[in-house]
Structures are given as structure tokens and as C-alpha cells.
């Protein structure tokens, strides 16, 4: 039973990792950018929301305003950072998002202060005992939100015009452009959507740990998730998240005591490398055949 509880709690935290990873995947798919600033976006979104909330705006007002702010941010990022850096090496783009994370974090703290904010979504975080498994209402709520979010994204990308253009861009950027898809527009949309995902992730994480700077550190948890799942696969992000969450929790409890301490800071990466050796492009990443 203890084992099962550890496993479940791992899976539940894995779902949270997956949420952050999805934001990554969206951006990587559409623009090939390994967006290190995703963590800062989570922080910024959650801070914006919580500060609005503290100023008396109810949830239904604060949420859309925050979304709007994230959209403006996405447009600015596309204009000021992505567009001038088009066609540059992945390393350069990665560095640019690192610089971007400084800007966003500085901005977040300059605008909203460095305080730790309490965020109460009004959902009880007390455990329910389900056949010996301890799961809280909040866990169930968070999982439901994650599932709904993924479902909405899936519909958005398979059924709408915008989603189809996005997939076209992901498959073949040049071909997509040649049939008249405007890349900057797609980027703006994708960064906006991933801003929305960041907000949802930020609210769920923030409700647990308080909205504060360390929210931006979730990016470190998302990295092995991405590597295992593949940078460009949403199902991969989810499966990767669950895998990482479960194994690192188990490793901490069962391997940790053998080596004098917790191992989860690096365990996920070693796991990721092991996975890569078997599948060099992640679990769900596309394999490419070298053509010469």
C-alpha cells in the first residue's frame, strides 16, 4: 500500500510536470525553439493572476485578463526576439530564451514584487481515502484540468484551420510557407497558447506551493520529461511526465537511503539518457533517416 501511495503521488506530480512540458512542446513544434523561458512564463502568468486576484478581481475576471497579458507578451516576444532571430542555430535560439527568462523574471519581480503569494483556488487539498490510496480533491481536480486541457488542445490542433496550419508548419516549414501560411502569425498564436498553458500550470503549482520565484524552477523538472517524451510530441510529454514523476518518487524512497540522500535531482536525467539510448528521438519523437 505504501508503495502504491508513493507511486500515485509520483504519477500525480508527473502530471504537473507534463503540463509544463506541453507548453514547451507546442513552441518546439512550431518554431524549433527550445524555450527555456517556459518556467519564467509560468511564474509571470501566475504572479499576474494572483496580484489581480489580490486587488479584488474575481477568478472569472482575473483569468481572461491574464490570458490577454500573455497574448500581448507572446506578440512582443515574436516581434522583438523570434523574428530577428529567424533561421539561426538552435543553440542561439536557446540562449535567446535564456536571456528572455532574465527579462521576464526581472519584469515579474519588478512589477509584482518578490513576495510569496498565497493562491487559494477554493479547492480542498485534504486527502480522501480511496481504498487505502490517499488522493486529495485537489489532485483529482488538477488531473481533470490537465486532461481537459490536453483534450482541448487536441481538438484545436486537429479540427481548426489554425491547428491544421500549425501542423503543416511543424511538418515542413518551407512547404507551409509556400502555401501561404504566415509564420509570424503561427508563432504568435503558439506562444499565446503556451502562455495559456503556463498560466494553468502556474495556478495549479502555485496553489500548492505559493506563487513565488521558485515556480520558474519547474522548467528543470520539465527537461527530462521532454527528453524522454520527445521534444515534439504532446502524448510524449504526458507519458514522459508520468514516468519521471513516478520513477523519481520511487527512487527517492527506495534508492535514496542506499546512497545517503535524495536522488531525484539527477535520477530523471539518467533515466532520460537510458531511454534515449534505446530510442534516440524520445519515446514519441519522429525518427529521421539520414539521407546522403
Amino acid at each position, binding site marked *: 500500500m*505504501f508503495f502504491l*501511495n*508513493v507511486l500515485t*503521488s*509520483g504519477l*500525480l*506530480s508527473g502530471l504537473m510536470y507534463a503540463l509544463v512540458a506541453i507548453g514547451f512542446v507546442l513552441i518546439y513544434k512550431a518554431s524549433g525553439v527550445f524555450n527555456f523561458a517556459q518556467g519564467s512564463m509560468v511564474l509571470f502568468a501566475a504572479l499576474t493572476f494572483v496580484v489581480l486576484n489580490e486587488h479584488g478581481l474575481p477568478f472569472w475576471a482575473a483569468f481572461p485578463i491574464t490570458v490577454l497579458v500573455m497574448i500581448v507578451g507572446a506578440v512582443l516576444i515574436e516581434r522583438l526576439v523570434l523574428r530577428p532571430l529567424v533561421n539561426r542555430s538552435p543553440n542561439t535560439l536557446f540562449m535567446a530564451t535564456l536571456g528572455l527568462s532574465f527579462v521576464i*523574471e*526581472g519584469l515579474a*519581480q519588478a512589477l509584482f*514584487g*518578490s*513576495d*510569496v*503569494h*498565497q*493562491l*487559494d483556488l477554493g479547492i480542498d*487539498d*485534504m*486527502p480522501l481515502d480511496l481504498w487505502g490510496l*490517499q488522493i*486529495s480533491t485537489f489532485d483529482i481536480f488538477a488531473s481533470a484540468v490537465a486532461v481537459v486541457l490536453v483534450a482541448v488542445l487536441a481538438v484545436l490542433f486537429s479540427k481548426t484551420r489554425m491547428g491544421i496550419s500549425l501542423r503543416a508548419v511543424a511538418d515542413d516549414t518551407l512547404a507551409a510557407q509556400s502555401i501561404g501560411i504566415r509564420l509570424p502569425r503561427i508563432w504568435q498564436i503558439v506562444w499565446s497558447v503556451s502562455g495559456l498553458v503556463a498560466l494553468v500550470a502556474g495556478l495549479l*503549482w502555485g496553489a*500548492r*506551493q*505559493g*506563487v*513565488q*520565484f*521558485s515556480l520558474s*524552477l*519547474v522548467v528543470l523538472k520539465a527537461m527530462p520529461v521532454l527528453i524522454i517524451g520527445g521534444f515534439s510530441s504532446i502524448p510524449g510529454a504526458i507519458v514522459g511526465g508520468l514516468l519521471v514523476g513516478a520513477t523519481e*518518487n*520511487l527512487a*527517492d*524512497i527506495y534508492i*535514496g537511503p542506499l546512497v545517503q*540522500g*535524495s*536522488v*531525484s*535531482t539527477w535520477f530523471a536525467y539518467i533515466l532520460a539518457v537510458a531511454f534515449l539510448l534505446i530510442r534516440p528521438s524520445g519515446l514519441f519523437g519522429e525518427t529521421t533517416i539520414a539521407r546522403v
Partner: protein
Amino acid sequence: MTLHKTLALFGALLLGSTSLSAAAHAADHDGQQLYPLLSYRTGPYAPSGIPQWAGIRDYLTYVNDVQGGVDGVKVFVQECETAYTVERAFECYERYKNGYDGAPVAILMGTSSGFDAAASEKVRADKIPLVTNAGGREDAVDGSVFPYQFPLLFDYWTEASIVVDYVAKQVGGYDKLKGLKIATLYHDSGYGRDTIEPLATLSKKYGFEDIEIPVPHPGEQQQAQWQQIKQQAADWVFFRAWGVMAPVGIKTAARVGFPADHIIGDIWTGSEEDVRPAGTAAKGYLAVSVFPSGTDFKVSQTLKKDVIDAGKGDLKDQSKFGSVYYNAGLVTAIIYIEALRTGHKQFGDRPLTAAEGQWALEHLDITPQRIEELGATGLLSPLKVTASDHEGSPAAKIVQWDGKEWHAKTDWLNGDRALFHDAIFAKAAAYAKEKSLPAREAATN
């Protein structure tokens, strides 16, 4: 075109600023005492830093503006952002160690344990006394080995014994500890691991079961660890967190059904910033407190009147006035000023040198009467430092969070420092041997 732009950018930054800094030297701070404030107002630890700097600055403003300086000597604060990194702190240290603009450094008040640990060799070489309030390396209390380090007020070993002492009192005496389970949930770092050894000693002495569980940095997931605590049926939890680990831990404890009033937080796990985000889950939570919160102290009232209400305060968010970290800053500043006063009695009312600052610290004696005069009764415990004992008399209270504020559950507790004396001094001796340090001459009086 681009060439010019980029060059201008780069050049202006590097050359411009250095030349400007040279020009700034025209301003004169002769006859003042330099207080280099190695702050961190950005990054993950900013929430714990900002109120501290305000506490320090407000008290120094009070001393300068209302009291006309320390015995007439004004304190000149130069702040330097370190972003909580050791290397930025080093640069700040190097920039100000020899004084600035005519104002010398007498005492350096440390601000982050990373820097304090790393600066050990530097301050020895530069002969600058470094004070680390409640959190330096334990073996530095041996002033014969660490003449320039002053881990004042408190240490984690004493903390461990205070926690055990408090638990013993709750269960009805030390003899009742046998068979009890005390789990320590610690931040997996040098700071967190520091209590492993003293707890092992205490466990051996009193017969309670010592369960040690690490949480990896930053500690935003603790479900597994708390489930482990539940599974092993721990009676008490000594919670040694840092940053985000604190609220997450308190919430998770509630989730697994561990009572908050059986969790005793470490001194860095007992601020408003630690419990507020945990909401109702934190009600009843206990913590070890070296820097009691509150605004009722006489000195706080004075500051409120003469500094805050006069618009000279450093706090942007007034609700932080009287918080744990604000008062920690206040205590830091009070100790600093008292050390300067001690030095002035010996050397005259003028800016002190680092050597004089070191002498002053080794003769610092803040008696209960003096504390009363300062209006800091209850805020500061009596402190007497000597050349061989660089810590003074460690003391802390146990406080409880009622959902809105902290309430003291006990008066100052001193713990069982004697129990660890030999182990700590043996460590200092081992260090002296490794570094082949010459034995220090007996303190000159």
C-alpha cells in the same frame, strides 16, 4: 552601422561605468563607518532578503538621523546586489573590503550562508571580522582557530538540542523520550545535513528514535517523504526547510494528516513567508525563533515613529514591518551598532579599522540591562562574546503560528551546548591541522 551600435553598447557599459565610479569618489565620506550591505533583492531568495535589508537600513537610518550617528560617527551604507550567488558576493566584498570613499570597514555582517562559508579564507587573509548571525559553521565558534569569524547568536547543533528539549517538556520529561520517534525532514544541502550529527548524539543519549529524511532542492514535491513519515509513525517532525520547501511541506503534512502542532520548523522555516502560502494548513505550526516577530518592542515603536512614519523607511510593503525577517535585520543592525560602541569605548569615537572591529566583537557584551535600554527586551537575547567563544550565548524561543501571527510558546531556551562542545572544538582543531594554522596567541585584553 551595427558595428558602431554594438561597440557603443559594450564600450559605454564597461568603460563608462568604471570611469563614472572613479568620478563618484569626489563625494566625501571621511569620518564615517562603511557598512557594505551584500544584499539579494532578486531571485528565489529575495522574499527573505528584502525585509532583512529594510530592518538593517531602518535601524541605521534611526542611528544616523535621530541619534546623530554612533557616538557621533555616521554609518555609511553601500548596498551591493549579489543575487544570492557567491561570486557576485565576492566581487562586492573585494570592492568594499578596503573601505570606500574614505570610510573604512570595521565589521562585515554576512548575509548568505554560501558566501559566509566561502569567505572563510578570504577574511582570514584580509583580517576582516565577518559576523554570520545564526547560521555560520559551528566550528567557527572556536575563536582560536577562526579569529575573524563570528557565528553569533545561534547554531544548528544548539537548535537540535532545543527542539529535543521542547519535545521532552511536551511529553513530560527527558525520561519519556525513550521510544519516541522524532523525524528530521531536511533540505538536502550542507545546511540541511548539519543537524544529522547532533541529533545522532542526542538520540544516543536520550533513547528516542532519530529518523532522517532528505528532501531534494528546491523541495516542491514532498508527498513521498511525508508518506514515509506517516508510515514510520513519527511522533514529531523537526522541519528544516528553506524557501519553497517550507509551505509545500506544511501543506503536504496536512494532506497526509500529520498534525501541524507536532512539526517544529527550523529558524529559517519559521517566517511569515514560510507559513502564509500554506494557508490554514499552517495553523498550530511551531518553529524555533531567534528573531521573534512583532511590533510591540520598544525599539520597533521608536523606529515606527522616527523612521517609517517620517517617510525614511526602506520597506515598500509596510505589512512586512515587524515580520521575522524584518526583525532579523533589526537584530543584525543592533548587534553591529553595539559592537561599534564597544570599540569606541576602547579606541575613541571615530571610524574603526577592521582590527579594531575584531577586538570590539571579541569584547561584545550585551547584557539584559543594555537590551532593556535599547528597548529590545524579548527581541534580542543576552550576548557575551569572548576571544575563545565567538558565538556568545545561543538562545531561541519556540513560537507558534495561529493563522495570522506568531506567538511565543516559551521564553529564551539555551539548549545543551555543553554536550557538543568537545565535538565542535575537535572539528575546529582538525581544520587547524589540515590547514596547518599556527596556534593563536591568547587573546589580548
